Protein backbone atom coordinates (compact mmCIF):
# COMPACT_ATOMS: atom_id res chain seq x y z
CA UNK A 1 0.00 0.00 0.00
CA UNK A 2 1.37 3.35 -0.94
CA UNK A 3 1.06 6.01 1.75
CA UNK A 4 0.50 9.52 0.50
CA UNK A 5 3.26 11.59 2.01
CA UNK A 6 3.91 15.27 2.37
CA UNK A 7 7.32 16.89 2.75
CA UNK A 8 8.20 14.88 5.81
CA UNK A 9 10.85 17.32 6.95
CA UNK A 10 8.59 20.31 7.23
CA UNK A 11 5.84 18.45 9.02
CA UNK A 12 8.20 16.99 11.57
CA UNK A 13 9.45 20.39 12.63
CA UNK A 14 5.97 21.72 13.15
CA UNK A 15 4.61 18.70 14.92
CA UNK A 16 3.85 18.06 18.54
CA UNK A 17 6.11 15.74 20.47
CA UNK A 18 5.42 12.09 19.82
CA UNK A 19 4.05 11.24 23.22
CA UNK A 20 1.03 13.51 22.75
CA UNK A 21 -0.51 10.93 20.49
CA UNK A 22 -0.51 8.40 23.29
CA UNK A 23 -1.85 10.96 25.69
CA UNK A 24 -4.73 11.56 23.29
CA UNK A 25 -5.40 7.86 22.87
CA UNK A 26 -5.35 7.52 26.63
CA UNK A 27 -7.89 10.26 27.16
CA UNK A 28 -10.27 8.82 24.60
CA UNK A 29 -9.95 5.32 26.03
CA UNK A 30 -10.59 6.53 29.57
CA UNK A 31 -13.73 8.40 28.56
CA UNK A 32 -14.96 5.47 26.51
CA UNK A 33 -14.45 3.22 29.48
CA UNK A 34 -16.35 5.64 31.68
CA UNK A 35 -19.18 5.66 29.21
CA UNK A 36 -19.36 1.91 28.91
CA UNK A 37 -19.02 1.20 32.61
CA UNK A 38 -21.07 4.15 33.80
CA UNK A 39 -23.54 2.12 35.83
CA UNK A 40 -20.66 0.62 37.80
CA UNK A 41 -18.36 3.63 38.07
CA UNK A 42 -20.81 6.41 38.88
CA UNK A 43 -21.40 6.72 42.62
CA UNK A 44 -25.03 7.77 42.19
CA UNK A 45 -27.73 7.43 39.63
CA UNK A 46 -27.86 10.51 37.44
CA UNK A 47 -31.55 11.10 38.10
CA UNK A 48 -31.31 10.55 41.80
CA UNK A 49 -32.59 13.73 43.39
CA UNK A 50 -31.51 14.19 46.99
CA UNK A 51 -33.59 17.18 47.87
CA UNK A 52 -31.88 17.70 51.18
CA UNK A 53 -28.53 18.09 49.49
CA UNK A 54 -29.12 20.62 46.75
CA UNK A 55 -26.44 23.03 45.58
CA UNK A 56 -23.70 21.54 47.66
CA UNK A 57 -20.14 22.52 46.94
CA UNK A 58 -17.68 19.70 46.24
CA UNK A 59 -17.31 17.59 49.36
CA UNK A 60 -16.41 14.09 50.41
CA UNK A 61 -19.83 12.67 49.58
CA UNK A 62 -20.16 14.47 46.29
CA UNK A 63 -16.74 15.03 44.81
CA UNK A 64 -17.95 17.54 42.26
CA UNK A 65 -20.87 18.88 44.21
CA UNK A 66 -24.61 18.68 43.55
CA UNK A 67 -26.94 20.62 41.34
CA UNK A 68 -30.17 22.43 42.14
CA UNK A 69 -32.07 19.15 42.25
CA UNK A 70 -29.58 17.53 44.52
CA UNK A 71 -28.23 15.34 41.79
CA UNK A 72 -24.56 14.36 41.99
CA UNK A 73 -22.60 16.29 39.41
CA UNK A 74 -19.88 13.68 39.06
CA UNK A 75 -22.36 10.93 38.28
CA UNK A 76 -24.14 13.10 35.77
CA UNK A 77 -20.88 13.85 34.07
CA UNK A 78 -20.00 10.17 33.87
CA UNK A 79 -23.37 9.26 32.46
CA UNK A 80 -23.26 12.21 30.17
CA UNK A 81 -20.18 10.75 28.55
CA UNK A 82 -22.43 8.31 26.74
CA UNK A 83 -24.31 11.06 24.99
CA UNK A 84 -21.34 13.23 24.13
CA UNK A 85 -19.21 10.36 22.88
CA UNK A 86 -22.15 9.23 20.78
CA UNK A 87 -22.37 12.70 19.32
CA UNK A 88 -18.74 12.59 18.35
CA UNK A 89 -18.91 9.05 17.07
CA UNK A 90 -22.10 8.82 15.07
CA UNK A 91 -21.85 12.45 14.13
CA UNK A 92 -18.72 11.53 12.26
CA UNK A 93 -19.65 8.10 11.01
CA UNK A 94 -22.61 9.01 8.80
CA UNK A 95 -20.97 11.95 7.01
CA UNK A 96 -17.84 9.85 6.62
CA UNK A 97 -19.65 7.03 4.87
CA UNK A 98 -21.82 9.22 2.69
CA UNK A 99 -18.99 11.59 1.85
CA UNK A 100 -16.57 8.82 0.99
CA UNK A 101 -19.01 7.18 -1.39
CA UNK A 102 -19.84 10.38 -3.18
CA UNK A 103 -16.26 11.60 -3.19
CA UNK A 104 -15.09 8.32 -4.66
CA UNK A 105 -17.61 8.45 -7.47
CA UNK A 106 -16.96 12.09 -8.22
CA UNK A 107 -13.21 11.80 -8.06
CA UNK A 108 -12.94 8.63 -10.09
CA UNK A 109 -15.53 9.15 -12.79
CA UNK A 110 -15.43 12.90 -13.00
CA UNK A 111 -17.86 14.34 -15.47
CA UNK A 112 -21.26 15.59 -14.47
CA UNK A 113 -21.25 13.79 -11.14
CA UNK A 114 -18.18 15.76 -10.23
CA UNK A 115 -19.61 19.03 -11.45
CA UNK A 116 -22.79 18.65 -9.47
CA UNK A 117 -20.78 17.73 -6.43
CA UNK A 118 -18.62 20.80 -6.71
CA UNK A 119 -21.67 23.04 -6.98
CA UNK A 120 -23.25 21.39 -3.96
CA UNK A 121 -19.99 21.86 -2.18
CA UNK A 122 -19.85 25.56 -2.95
CA UNK A 123 -23.39 26.05 -1.76
CA UNK A 124 -23.03 24.07 1.42
CA UNK A 125 -19.76 25.71 2.27
CA UNK A 126 -21.30 29.12 2.00
CA UNK A 127 -23.86 28.28 4.62
CA UNK A 128 -22.74 28.84 8.17
CA UNK A 129 -22.48 25.24 9.30
CA UNK A 130 -23.94 25.88 12.67
CA UNK A 131 -26.86 27.91 11.39
CA UNK A 132 -27.76 25.26 8.87
CA UNK A 133 -27.72 22.56 11.53
CA UNK A 134 -29.94 24.65 13.75
CA UNK A 135 -32.31 25.31 10.87
CA UNK A 136 -32.58 21.64 10.05
CA UNK A 137 -33.05 20.68 13.67
CA UNK A 138 -35.71 23.36 13.96
CA UNK A 139 -37.55 21.74 11.11
CA UNK A 140 -37.14 18.19 12.31
CA UNK A 141 -37.81 18.91 15.93
CA UNK A 142 -35.28 19.02 18.74
CA UNK A 143 -33.47 15.85 19.72
CA UNK A 144 -30.45 13.69 19.16
CA UNK A 145 -31.84 11.98 16.07
CA UNK A 146 -32.43 15.30 14.39
CA UNK A 147 -28.89 16.23 15.26
CA UNK A 148 -27.49 13.16 13.54
CA UNK A 149 -29.66 13.67 10.48
CA UNK A 150 -28.65 17.31 10.26
CA UNK A 151 -24.96 16.57 10.64
CA UNK A 152 -25.17 13.80 8.06
CA UNK A 153 -26.92 16.09 5.59
CA UNK A 154 -24.41 18.88 5.98
CA UNK A 155 -21.19 17.24 7.06
CA UNK A 156 -20.68 14.77 4.23
CA UNK A 157 -19.39 17.57 2.08
CA UNK A 158 -16.00 17.89 3.79
CA UNK A 159 -15.34 14.19 3.46
CA UNK A 160 -16.43 14.13 -0.14
CA UNK A 161 -14.07 16.97 -0.89
CA UNK A 162 -11.11 15.27 0.75
CA UNK A 163 -11.69 11.90 -0.85
CA UNK A 164 -12.41 13.42 -4.24
CA UNK A 165 -9.20 15.41 -4.37
CA UNK A 166 -7.22 12.34 -3.39
CA UNK A 167 -8.88 10.39 -6.17
CA UNK A 168 -8.15 13.10 -8.69
CA UNK A 169 -4.48 12.84 -7.90
CA UNK A 170 -4.20 9.11 -7.39
CA UNK A 171 -6.12 7.98 -10.44
CA UNK A 172 -3.28 9.33 -12.54
CA UNK A 173 -0.67 7.47 -10.53
CA UNK A 174 1.48 4.80 -12.05
CA UNK A 175 0.09 1.97 -10.01
CA UNK A 176 -3.35 2.70 -11.36
CA UNK A 177 -2.18 2.65 -14.94
CA UNK A 178 -0.49 -0.62 -14.19
CA UNK A 179 -3.66 -2.06 -12.69
CA UNK A 180 -5.71 -0.97 -15.67
CA UNK A 181 -3.31 -2.45 -18.10
CA UNK A 182 -3.63 -5.73 -16.24
CA UNK A 183 -7.33 -5.66 -17.00
CA UNK A 184 -8.76 -4.92 -13.57
CA UNK A 185 -12.28 -3.57 -13.58
CA UNK A 186 -12.98 0.02 -12.60
CA UNK A 187 -14.81 -1.03 -9.47
CA UNK A 188 -11.92 -3.11 -8.29
CA UNK A 189 -9.36 -0.42 -8.98
CA UNK A 190 -11.51 2.12 -7.22
CA UNK A 191 -12.13 0.09 -4.13
CA UNK A 192 -9.09 -2.04 -3.64
CA UNK A 193 -6.33 0.07 -5.07
CA UNK A 194 -7.11 3.73 -4.76
CA UNK A 195 -9.53 3.88 -1.88
CA UNK A 196 -7.18 2.60 0.85
CA UNK A 197 -4.84 5.46 0.06
CA UNK A 198 -7.43 8.08 -0.67
CA UNK A 199 -9.24 7.53 2.56
CA UNK A 200 -6.33 8.44 4.81
CA UNK A 201 -6.83 12.22 4.92
CA UNK A 202 -10.51 11.58 5.57
CA UNK A 203 -9.68 9.36 8.52
CA UNK A 204 -7.40 11.99 9.97
CA UNK A 205 -10.02 14.65 9.43
CA UNK A 206 -12.68 12.54 11.10
CA UNK A 207 -10.91 12.93 14.40
CA UNK A 208 -10.89 16.70 14.27
CA UNK A 209 -14.44 16.43 13.06
CA UNK A 210 -15.34 14.46 16.17
CA UNK A 211 -14.26 17.49 18.19
CA UNK A 212 -16.45 19.72 16.07
CA UNK A 213 -19.43 17.42 16.50
CA UNK A 214 -19.02 17.18 20.24
CA UNK A 215 -18.91 20.95 20.50
CA UNK A 216 -21.81 21.23 18.10
CA UNK A 217 -23.98 18.73 19.91
CA UNK A 218 -23.32 20.21 23.31
CA UNK A 219 -23.99 23.70 21.94
CA UNK A 220 -27.31 22.56 20.56
CA UNK A 221 -28.22 21.01 23.87
CA UNK A 222 -27.23 24.21 25.59
CA UNK A 223 -29.64 26.10 23.37
CA UNK A 224 -32.38 23.62 24.12
CA UNK A 225 -32.42 22.14 20.66
CA UNK A 226 -30.64 18.94 21.41
CA UNK A 227 -30.96 16.47 24.19
CA UNK A 228 -33.90 17.15 26.50
CA UNK A 229 -33.83 17.13 30.27
CA UNK A 230 -33.50 15.14 32.45
CA UNK A 231 -30.99 13.32 30.27
CA UNK A 232 -27.52 14.10 31.53
CA UNK A 233 -25.51 15.84 28.85
CA UNK A 234 -22.65 18.23 29.39
CA UNK A 235 -23.98 21.14 27.35
CA UNK A 236 -27.42 20.82 28.87
CA UNK A 237 -25.91 20.76 32.34
CA UNK A 238 -24.16 24.04 31.64
CA UNK A 239 -27.40 25.57 30.45
CA UNK A 240 -29.16 24.41 33.61
CA UNK A 241 -26.36 25.87 35.69
CA UNK A 242 -26.68 29.36 34.36
CA UNK A 243 -29.35 30.40 36.80
CA UNK A 244 -27.15 29.41 39.67
CA UNK A 245 -23.94 30.94 38.45
CA UNK A 246 -23.42 33.17 41.40
CA UNK A 247 -23.95 30.45 43.97
CA UNK A 248 -22.86 27.17 42.44
CA UNK A 249 -19.82 27.57 40.22
CA UNK A 250 -19.22 23.82 40.22
CA UNK A 251 -22.33 23.21 38.19
CA UNK A 252 -20.91 25.19 35.28
CA UNK A 253 -17.24 24.46 35.56
CA UNK A 254 -17.02 20.69 35.62
CA UNK A 255 -19.21 19.77 32.67
CA UNK A 256 -17.25 22.25 30.60
CA UNK A 257 -13.96 20.77 31.70
CA UNK A 258 -15.27 17.38 30.62
CA UNK A 259 -15.96 18.72 27.16
CA UNK A 260 -12.54 20.33 26.95
CA UNK A 261 -10.72 17.21 28.05
CA UNK A 262 -12.59 14.89 25.69
CA UNK A 263 -12.07 17.33 22.83
CA UNK A 264 -8.40 17.57 23.70
CA UNK A 265 -8.14 13.81 23.49
CA UNK A 266 -9.54 13.76 19.99
CA UNK A 267 -7.44 16.74 18.89
CA UNK A 268 -4.24 15.11 20.04
CA UNK A 269 -5.34 11.92 18.35
CA UNK A 270 -5.97 13.80 15.13
CA UNK A 271 -2.62 15.55 15.18
CA UNK A 272 -0.74 12.46 16.19
CA UNK A 273 -2.24 10.25 13.52
CA UNK A 274 -1.70 12.92 10.90
CA UNK A 275 1.91 13.11 11.89
CA UNK A 276 2.37 9.36 11.83
CA UNK A 277 0.81 8.90 8.46
CA UNK A 278 2.56 11.93 7.01
CA UNK A 279 -0.76 13.19 5.76
CA UNK A 280 -1.39 16.89 5.25
CA UNK A 281 -4.22 18.23 7.39
CA UNK A 282 -6.42 21.23 6.64
Amino acid at each position, binding site marked *: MIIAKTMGGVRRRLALPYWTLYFGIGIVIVWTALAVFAPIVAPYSPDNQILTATLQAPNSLHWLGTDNFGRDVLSRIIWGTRVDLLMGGLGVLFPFIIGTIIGTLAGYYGGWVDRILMRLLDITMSF*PFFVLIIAIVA*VLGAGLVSFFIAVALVGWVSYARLVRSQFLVLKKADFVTAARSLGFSNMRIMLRHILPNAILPAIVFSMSDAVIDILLGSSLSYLGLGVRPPTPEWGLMIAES*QNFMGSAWWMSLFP*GLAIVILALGFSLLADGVAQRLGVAVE
Partner: protein
Amino acid sequence: MGRFKFVLLRPIELIPVLLGISAITFILVHMLPGDPAHVLLGPRATARAIAAIKSEYGLDKPIFVQYFYFLANLLHGHLGRSVVYKAPVFQVIAGHVVPTVFLVVYGVLISIAASIVLAIMAALSEGRIIDHTVRVLSTVGLGLPAFWIGVVFMMLFGIDLGWFPVSGFGEGFWGHVHYLFLPALTIAFAMTPILTRNLRASLLQETKADYVLAARSKGLSPRVVWITHILRNSLLATVNLLGVTVSWLIGGTVVVEMVFSVPGLGHLMVSSIFSRDYLVVEAVTMILALGIVGTNFLVDIATALLDPRVNL
Protein backbone atom coordinates in the same frame (compact mmCIF):
# COMPACT_ATOMS: atom_id res chain seq x y z
CA MET B 1 -5.87 45.55 -14.68
CA GLY B 2 -6.76 41.91 -14.94
CA ARG B 3 -7.21 41.83 -11.24
CA PHE B 4 -9.97 44.36 -11.28
CA LYS B 5 -11.82 42.36 -13.85
CA PHE B 6 -11.78 39.55 -11.34
CA VAL B 7 -13.42 41.69 -8.73
CA LEU B 8 -16.23 42.53 -11.10
CA LEU B 9 -16.77 39.05 -12.47
CA ARG B 10 -16.77 37.21 -9.19
CA PRO B 11 -20.24 38.32 -8.10
CA ILE B 12 -21.63 36.73 -11.24
CA GLU B 13 -20.12 33.43 -10.27
CA LEU B 14 -21.84 33.75 -6.94
CA ILE B 15 -25.33 33.79 -8.41
CA PRO B 16 -25.76 30.02 -8.56
CA VAL B 17 -24.61 29.89 -4.96
CA LEU B 18 -27.15 32.49 -3.92
CA LEU B 19 -29.85 30.62 -5.77
CA GLY B 20 -28.82 27.48 -3.99
CA ILE B 21 -29.05 29.19 -0.65
CA SER B 22 -32.54 30.42 -1.36
CA ALA B 23 -33.55 27.00 -2.56
CA ILE B 24 -32.27 25.24 0.53
CA THR B 25 -33.95 27.70 2.82
CA PHE B 26 -37.17 27.33 0.89
CA ILE B 27 -37.01 23.56 1.13
CA LEU B 28 -36.36 23.69 4.84
CA VAL B 29 -39.39 25.74 5.58
CA HIS B 30 -41.59 23.59 3.43
CA MET B 31 -40.50 20.50 5.25
CA LEU B 32 -42.23 21.72 8.36
CA PRO B 33 -45.19 19.55 9.23
CA GLY B 34 -48.65 20.95 8.79
CA ASP B 35 -50.41 23.34 6.51
CA PRO B 36 -47.91 25.91 5.29
CA ALA B 37 -50.29 28.80 5.87
CA HIS B 38 -50.81 27.91 9.49
CA VAL B 39 -47.18 27.11 9.97
CA LEU B 40 -46.20 30.54 8.77
CA LEU B 41 -48.95 32.51 10.38
CA GLY B 42 -49.47 30.64 13.58
CA PRO B 43 -52.56 28.82 14.89
CA ARG B 44 -54.63 31.93 15.50
CA ALA B 45 -54.54 33.33 12.02
CA THR B 46 -57.62 34.95 10.58
CA ALA B 47 -59.16 33.59 7.41
CA ARG B 48 -58.36 36.85 5.68
CA ALA B 49 -54.69 36.59 6.60
CA ILE B 50 -54.62 33.01 5.38
CA ALA B 51 -56.17 33.96 2.08
CA ALA B 52 -53.71 36.82 1.75
CA ILE B 53 -50.66 34.70 2.37
CA LYS B 54 -51.96 32.03 0.02
CA SER B 55 -52.07 34.49 -2.82
CA GLU B 56 -48.82 36.16 -1.87
CA TYR B 57 -46.88 32.95 -1.81
CA GLY B 58 -48.99 30.83 -4.12
CA LEU B 59 -49.40 28.26 -1.37
CA ASP B 60 -51.98 26.14 -3.19
CA LYS B 61 -49.89 25.86 -6.29
CA PRO B 62 -47.34 23.16 -7.06
CA ILE B 63 -44.07 23.44 -5.22
CA PHE B 64 -41.95 24.69 -8.10
CA VAL B 65 -44.32 27.52 -8.69
CA GLN B 66 -44.22 28.33 -5.00
CA TYR B 67 -40.47 28.63 -5.24
CA PHE B 68 -40.79 31.25 -7.94
CA TYR B 69 -43.28 33.17 -5.85
CA PHE B 70 -40.76 32.98 -3.07
CA LEU B 71 -37.92 34.25 -5.23
CA ALA B 72 -40.02 37.02 -6.64
CA ASN B 73 -40.98 38.17 -3.18
CA LEU B 74 -37.40 37.91 -2.10
CA LEU B 75 -36.14 40.14 -4.84
CA HIS B 76 -38.69 42.73 -3.89
CA GLY B 77 -37.56 42.61 -0.32
CA HIS B 78 -40.81 41.01 0.80
CA LEU B 79 -39.81 38.57 3.42
CA GLY B 80 -43.19 38.19 4.97
CA ARG B 81 -44.59 39.23 8.28
CA SER B 82 -43.40 38.16 11.68
CA VAL B 83 -46.04 36.45 13.78
CA VAL B 84 -44.40 37.38 17.02
CA TYR B 85 -43.34 40.92 16.34
CA LYS B 86 -46.36 41.78 14.21
CA ALA B 87 -44.16 43.64 11.77
CA PRO B 88 -42.56 42.99 8.39
CA VAL B 89 -39.77 40.52 8.73
CA PHE B 90 -37.44 42.85 6.92
CA GLN B 91 -37.93 45.42 9.60
CA VAL B 92 -37.44 42.94 12.39
CA ILE B 93 -34.19 41.78 10.91
CA ALA B 94 -32.98 45.28 10.28
CA GLY B 95 -33.47 46.00 13.94
CA HIS B 96 -31.25 43.11 14.94
CA VAL B 97 -28.39 43.40 12.50
CA VAL B 98 -26.28 46.00 14.23
CA PRO B 99 -25.50 44.10 17.44
CA THR B 100 -24.39 41.05 15.47
CA VAL B 101 -22.17 42.99 13.13
CA PHE B 102 -20.66 44.91 16.01
CA LEU B 103 -20.02 41.72 17.92
CA VAL B 104 -18.44 39.92 14.98
CA VAL B 105 -16.12 42.78 14.11
CA TYR B 106 -15.20 43.30 17.74
CA GLY B 107 -14.45 39.60 18.21
CA VAL B 108 -12.46 39.35 14.99
CA LEU B 109 -10.31 42.34 15.87
CA ILE B 110 -9.43 40.91 19.25
CA SER B 111 -8.70 37.53 17.68
CA ILE B 112 -6.45 38.87 14.98
CA ALA B 113 -4.47 40.94 17.42
CA ALA B 114 -4.06 38.05 19.84
CA SER B 115 -3.20 35.52 17.14
CA ILE B 116 -0.53 37.69 15.57
CA VAL B 117 1.10 38.36 18.90
CA LEU B 118 1.00 34.75 20.06
CA ALA B 119 2.11 33.31 16.74
CA ILE B 120 5.07 35.66 16.47
CA MET B 121 6.08 34.96 20.04
CA ALA B 122 5.91 31.25 19.38
CA ALA B 123 7.80 31.41 16.09
CA LEU B 124 10.56 33.57 17.53
CA SER B 125 11.22 31.12 20.30
CA GLU B 126 10.83 28.01 18.24
CA GLY B 127 11.31 24.84 20.22
CA ARG B 128 11.62 26.63 23.53
CA ILE B 129 9.27 27.26 26.44
CA ILE B 130 7.14 30.02 24.98
CA ASP B 131 6.63 28.10 21.77
CA HIS B 132 5.56 24.97 23.58
CA THR B 133 3.22 26.90 25.83
CA VAL B 134 1.53 28.54 22.89
CA ARG B 135 1.16 25.26 21.09
CA VAL B 136 -0.31 23.49 24.09
CA LEU B 137 -2.71 26.34 24.75
CA SER B 138 -3.77 26.35 21.11
CA THR B 139 -4.47 22.65 21.08
CA VAL B 140 -6.43 22.81 24.31
CA GLY B 141 -8.21 25.88 23.00
CA LEU B 142 -9.56 24.01 20.02
CA GLY B 143 -11.84 22.09 22.32
CA LEU B 144 -13.24 25.02 24.27
CA PRO B 145 -16.97 25.28 23.72
CA ALA B 146 -17.91 28.90 23.15
CA PHE B 147 -20.93 28.74 25.39
CA TRP B 148 -18.93 27.44 28.30
CA ILE B 149 -16.26 30.08 27.94
CA GLY B 150 -19.05 32.63 27.90
CA VAL B 151 -20.59 31.24 31.04
CA VAL B 152 -17.25 31.12 32.81
CA PHE B 153 -16.46 34.70 31.84
CA MET B 154 -19.88 35.72 32.95
CA MET B 155 -19.32 34.14 36.33
CA LEU B 156 -15.85 35.50 36.75
CA PHE B 157 -15.89 38.97 35.30
CA GLY B 158 -19.56 39.70 35.37
CA ILE B 159 -20.79 38.39 38.65
CA ASP B 160 -17.86 37.78 40.92
CA LEU B 161 -15.81 40.77 39.90
CA GLY B 162 -18.60 42.84 38.46
CA TRP B 163 -16.43 44.54 35.89
CA PHE B 164 -18.71 43.98 32.93
CA PRO B 165 -22.43 43.67 32.39
CA VAL B 166 -23.66 40.19 31.62
CA SER B 167 -26.37 40.92 29.15
CA GLY B 168 -27.67 43.41 26.69
CA PHE B 169 -26.22 45.77 24.17
CA GLY B 170 -25.84 49.11 25.90
CA GLU B 171 -26.32 52.62 24.60
CA GLY B 172 -24.02 54.48 22.31
CA PHE B 173 -20.72 53.37 20.85
CA TRP B 174 -18.77 53.12 24.07
CA GLY B 175 -21.76 51.51 25.73
CA HIS B 176 -21.64 48.83 23.10
CA VAL B 177 -17.94 48.40 23.60
CA HIS B 178 -18.46 47.91 27.29
CA TYR B 179 -21.46 45.59 27.09
CA LEU B 180 -20.07 43.50 24.28
CA PHE B 181 -16.62 43.06 25.72
CA LEU B 182 -17.27 39.70 27.34
CA PRO B 183 -19.13 38.28 24.34
CA ALA B 184 -16.40 39.49 22.01
CA LEU B 185 -13.75 38.04 24.27
CA THR B 186 -15.62 34.74 24.20
CA ILE B 187 -15.61 34.77 20.44
CA ALA B 188 -11.93 35.61 20.45
CA PHE B 189 -11.19 32.66 22.71
CA ALA B 190 -12.96 30.42 20.24
CA MET B 191 -11.20 31.79 17.17
CA THR B 192 -7.70 32.49 18.36
CA PRO B 193 -6.44 28.92 18.82
CA ILE B 194 -6.95 27.95 15.23
CA LEU B 195 -5.64 31.21 13.82
CA THR B 196 -2.57 31.04 16.02
CA ARG B 197 -1.79 27.47 15.06
CA ASN B 198 -2.03 28.24 11.42
CA LEU B 199 -0.10 31.51 11.53
CA ARG B 200 2.62 29.97 13.64
CA ALA B 201 3.03 27.14 11.16
CA SER B 202 3.19 29.61 8.29
CA LEU B 203 5.74 31.75 10.04
CA LEU B 204 7.97 28.81 10.80
CA GLN B 205 7.72 27.64 7.24
CA GLU B 206 8.52 31.04 5.77
CA THR B 207 11.46 31.44 8.13
CA LYS B 208 13.11 28.54 6.36
CA ALA B 209 12.33 29.91 2.93
CA ASP B 210 15.09 30.55 0.43
CA TYR B 211 14.24 34.17 -0.12
CA VAL B 212 14.60 34.78 3.58
CA LEU B 213 18.14 33.46 3.39
CA ALA B 214 18.76 35.77 0.47
CA ALA B 215 17.39 38.69 2.45
CA ARG B 216 19.63 37.88 5.39
CA SER B 217 22.60 37.68 3.09
CA LYS B 218 22.00 41.30 2.15
CA GLY B 219 22.78 42.24 5.70
CA LEU B 220 19.27 43.30 6.63
CA SER B 221 18.49 43.36 10.31
CA PRO B 222 16.46 40.44 11.68
CA ARG B 223 13.62 42.81 12.44
CA VAL B 224 13.39 44.02 8.86
CA VAL B 225 13.58 40.47 7.52
CA TRP B 226 10.81 39.42 9.87
CA ILE B 227 8.42 42.21 9.11
CA THR B 228 8.85 42.78 5.43
CA HIS B 229 9.41 39.21 4.35
CA ILE B 230 8.37 36.54 6.80
CA LEU B 231 5.32 38.21 8.27
CA ARG B 232 3.95 39.50 5.00
CA ASN B 233 4.18 36.17 3.26
CA SER B 234 2.69 34.34 6.24
CA LEU B 235 -0.22 36.72 6.61
CA LEU B 236 -1.15 36.18 3.03
CA ALA B 237 -1.40 32.47 3.64
CA THR B 238 -3.52 33.04 6.71
CA VAL B 239 -6.00 35.42 5.10
CA ASN B 240 -7.79 32.54 3.51
CA LEU B 241 -8.14 30.76 6.82
CA LEU B 242 -9.44 33.94 8.32
CA GLY B 243 -12.24 33.93 5.79
CA VAL B 244 -13.22 30.39 6.64
CA THR B 245 -13.03 31.10 10.35
CA VAL B 246 -15.19 34.19 10.14
CA SER B 247 -17.77 32.08 8.39
CA TRP B 248 -17.69 29.75 11.34
CA LEU B 249 -17.88 32.70 13.58
CA ILE B 250 -21.06 33.99 12.12
CA GLY B 251 -22.61 30.72 13.11
CA GLY B 252 -20.95 30.86 16.49
CA THR B 253 -22.40 34.22 17.40
CA VAL B 254 -25.72 32.44 17.68
CA VAL B 255 -24.55 30.73 20.82
CA VAL B 256 -22.69 33.69 22.22
CA GLU B 257 -25.66 35.96 21.73
CA MET B 258 -27.82 33.49 23.59
CA VAL B 259 -25.40 33.23 26.48
CA PHE B 260 -25.18 36.97 26.92
CA SER B 261 -28.66 37.89 25.72
CA VAL B 262 -27.30 40.16 23.03
CA PRO B 263 -30.23 41.26 20.85
CA GLY B 264 -28.67 40.26 17.56
CA LEU B 265 -29.57 38.00 14.65
CA GLY B 266 -28.47 34.84 16.41
CA HIS B 267 -30.67 35.49 19.38
CA LEU B 268 -33.49 36.34 17.03
CA MET B 269 -33.11 33.08 15.21
CA VAL B 270 -33.18 30.87 18.27
CA SER B 271 -36.06 32.64 19.93
CA SER B 272 -37.98 32.54 16.67
CA ILE B 273 -37.48 28.81 16.48
CA PHE B 274 -39.01 28.40 19.89
CA SER B 275 -41.83 30.76 19.15
CA ARG B 276 -42.48 29.12 15.79
CA ASP B 277 -41.98 32.35 13.91
CA TYR B 278 -40.75 30.49 10.88
CA LEU B 279 -40.67 33.30 8.38
CA VAL B 280 -38.16 35.02 10.58
CA VAL B 281 -36.11 31.86 10.94
CA GLU B 282 -36.05 31.47 7.19
CA ALA B 283 -35.02 35.06 6.63
CA VAL B 284 -32.29 35.07 9.25
CA THR B 285 -30.82 31.88 7.83
CA MET B 286 -30.59 33.50 4.46
CA ILE B 287 -29.12 36.71 5.75
CA LEU B 288 -26.46 34.86 7.67
CA ALA B 289 -25.64 32.79 4.60
CA LEU B 290 -25.39 35.95 2.57
CA GLY B 291 -23.07 37.33 5.18
CA ILE B 292 -20.79 34.39 4.71
CA VAL B 293 -20.84 34.62 0.95
CA GLY B 294 -20.04 38.29 1.32
CA THR B 295 -17.18 37.62 3.68
CA ASN B 296 -15.68 34.99 1.43
CA PHE B 297 -16.00 37.36 -1.45
CA LEU B 298 -14.11 40.03 0.45
CA VAL B 299 -11.44 37.51 1.33
CA ASP B 300 -11.10 36.54 -2.31
CA ILE B 301 -10.70 40.14 -3.26
CA ALA B 302 -8.18 40.75 -0.53
CA THR B 303 -6.14 37.76 -1.65
CA ALA B 304 -6.26 38.84 -5.26
CA LEU B 305 -5.17 42.33 -4.41
CA LEU B 306 -2.43 41.33 -2.02
CA ASP B 307 -0.89 38.51 -4.01
CA PRO B 308 0.66 39.63 -7.27
CA ARG B 309 0.90 36.05 -8.43
CA VAL B 310 -2.86 35.67 -8.68
CA ASN B 311 -3.47 36.10 -12.36
CA LEU B 312 -6.92 36.11 -13.72
